[in-house]
């Protein structure tokens, strides 16, 4: 059974809080290079985040939305994208966009108030969306267009927060996806807070993932601070988006879209303009810090099966390498992750 077919209240996990594989969990098929790259990207994202917050404090950057705590969800999900897949971010996906090939200086440039940091040539990343949930219908529409054009190897991952699920655009975007069966993966970063509003105030529904049933497709809840579990469900959802019949061989009735609720926590402030101490306890933060995705993956790494990557990995599309991205990326039929080797030579 695909993990996507679980009860939405049944949270998918691969690693426990200490980085040990949980009983019965199936570890996703990632080779060591990919795992190391995943780890490296998570560390880099955290480091970038700290630097960005400090640049803002120094008055060298405008308001910035930090991501610390959410690296597992961002890197785990972005790593699952194939080269021909698309990413439709909110405003906090710096780490995910980096995995996809966006240079970090472009992210800085954008948050320093320059639209050119948002001009993501050939990366298959939509521009940063500030109005909450507004990007969701875009993801549905673009995926629908890909489907109408017969581009069967393209699926779309659309990111948004727990707060976004309350907006009409969430409802209409997911409902269209269900009706037109578009290849869209709706990835909800439930970080427990929408600025100062806690998840319970956002909706009375027990889980966010179960909202998928209102639209006739599958919803799944995953431990968003477990990068391997996130990778796994995102990968399965992407595969289903591109080939729903194969994803559910039994019935052949699976539909393309999936709603993933990645349960996680934002360690820092909502943005640099926010002071979370006004609305939440330090104790709560500490509790969630015990699930920090970075030490978790770090603890897991020594116990990997030690497989090397087979064959040449596809390169991350990177403007520093060849300037533009090769039009002919390997097809998403390839099982390789979104990571490549080109970045391994960078030093930070």
């Amino acid at each position: 059974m695909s993990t996507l077919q679980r009860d939405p209240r049944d949270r998918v996990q691969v690693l426990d809080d200490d980085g040990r594989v949980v009983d019965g969990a199936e570890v996703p098929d990632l080779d060591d290079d990919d795992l190391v790259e995943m780890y490296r990207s998570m560390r880099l994202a955290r480091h970038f985040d700290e630097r960005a917050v400090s640049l803002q404090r120094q008055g060298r950057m405008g308001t910035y939305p930090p991501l610390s705590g959410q690296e597992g969800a961002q890197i785990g999900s972005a790593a699952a994208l194939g080269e021909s897949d698309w990413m439709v971010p909110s405003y906090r996906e710096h780490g995910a966009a980096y995995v996809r090939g966006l240079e970090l200086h472009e992210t800085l440039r954008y948050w320093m108030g320059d639209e050119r940091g948002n001009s993501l040539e050939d990366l298959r990343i939509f521009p940063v969306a500030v109005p909450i949930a507004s990007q969701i219908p875009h993801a549905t529409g673009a995926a629908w267009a890909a489907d109408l054009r017969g581009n069967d190897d393209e699926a779309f991952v659309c990111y948004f927060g727990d707060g976004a699920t309350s907006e009409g655009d969430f409802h209409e975007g997911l409902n269209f996806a269900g009706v037109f069966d578009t290849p869209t993966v709706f990835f909800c970063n439930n970080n427990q807070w929408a600025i100062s509003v806690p998840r319970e105030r956002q909706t009375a529904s027990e889980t966010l993932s179960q909202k998928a049933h209102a639209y006739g497709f599958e919803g799944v809840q995953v431990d968003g601070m477990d990068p391997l579990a996130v990778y796994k469900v995102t990968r399965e959802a992407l595969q289903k988006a591109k080939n729903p019949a194969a994803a559910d061989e039994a019935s052949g009735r699976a539909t393309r879209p999936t709603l993933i609720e990645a349960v996680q926590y934002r360690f820092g402030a909502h943005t640099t303009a926010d002071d979370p101490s006004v609305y939440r306890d330090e104790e709560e933060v500490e509790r969630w810090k015990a699930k920090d995705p970075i030490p978790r993956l770090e603890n897991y790494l020594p116990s990997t099966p030690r497989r090397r990557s087979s064959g040449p990995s596809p390169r991350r599309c990177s403007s520093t390498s060849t300037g533009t991205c090769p039009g002919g990326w390997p097809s998403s039929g390839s099982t390789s992750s979104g990571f490549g080797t080109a970045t391994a030579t960078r030093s930070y």
Partner: protein
Amino acid sequence: MSTEQQVEIQNLTLVQAVRDGLRGEMQRDEDVVVLGEDVGQNGGVFRATEGLYEEFGDDRVIDTPLAEAGIVGTAVGMAAYGMRPVPEIQFSGFMYPGFDQIVSHAARFRTRSRGRFTVPMVLRAPYGGGIRAPEHHSESKEAFYTHEAGLQVVVPSTPYDAKGLLAASIRDPDPVVFLEPKLIYRAFREEVPDDDYTVDLGEAAVRREGEDVSLFTWGAMTRPSLDAAEAVAEEGIDVEVVDLRTLSPMDVETIVESFKRTGRAVVVHEAPKTGGLAGEITATIQEEALYHQEAPIARVTGFDVPYPLYALEDYYMPEHARIEDAIRDTHDA
């Protein structure tokens, strides 16, 4: 195609010309898709998409769920991906649930991404009053859209223009709000070439030349304006009637040039007066040509009230008597 059909195609109502324009563009370009409420098998509540579903199928003429933000928002996504969606909103009074997607997204993708993504989308909606319809079916709020810089706004007033402006809009790389005056959807017919053609965006049409007073208008108000011009002509007042056709970007050159000759102007629109486009036009004229101005510029418009239910709509809509009076006053001032 039978001869009979060819003859029909040459002599079309405005709504038929819209349909003909859609059909031509859909034949020309596979990326053009039509989506909206009841646009498919039903052919649209005004029959503007009649026959397209049968000709192009469910993948290109798409009945959507009842959700305007969803319609506009998915169309924005489609357009950003590279298609040329032509979403229909059933009545312009129902564009507001999709307003955020129109003004914050369709209008901004190009700037937001510095040209990486554009939104070649044409958002069609029947608009304006006078058809004895229920509440919200008679809106005329073009000023909302002309105030948003990333949008072009077009209102045709003749079948020929409707087809040509629609084709130009669909081929344009940026979003167009295409408002169709439903009062004249079937009011008259006009010869419309069978072949496809475009009418350039941004160019006004002088519908009647005149030397005494310039009258600026668009859409359904063009006809009563022309009627009023004929009526006062008998009194010796020679009115130039300019149909703006594209409201954004506005053809300031034609407006100012006409005004410089006449020194007097009347602006006619259905929308409420305050904040309506007549104010913008007046301000532009006095900026560019104050020293030619001989009289206050008159605004003949709807009133500053919510559009009434139909028992009172005849009092609301500008009609030729009110226009005539304004012309006379302006002429005599």
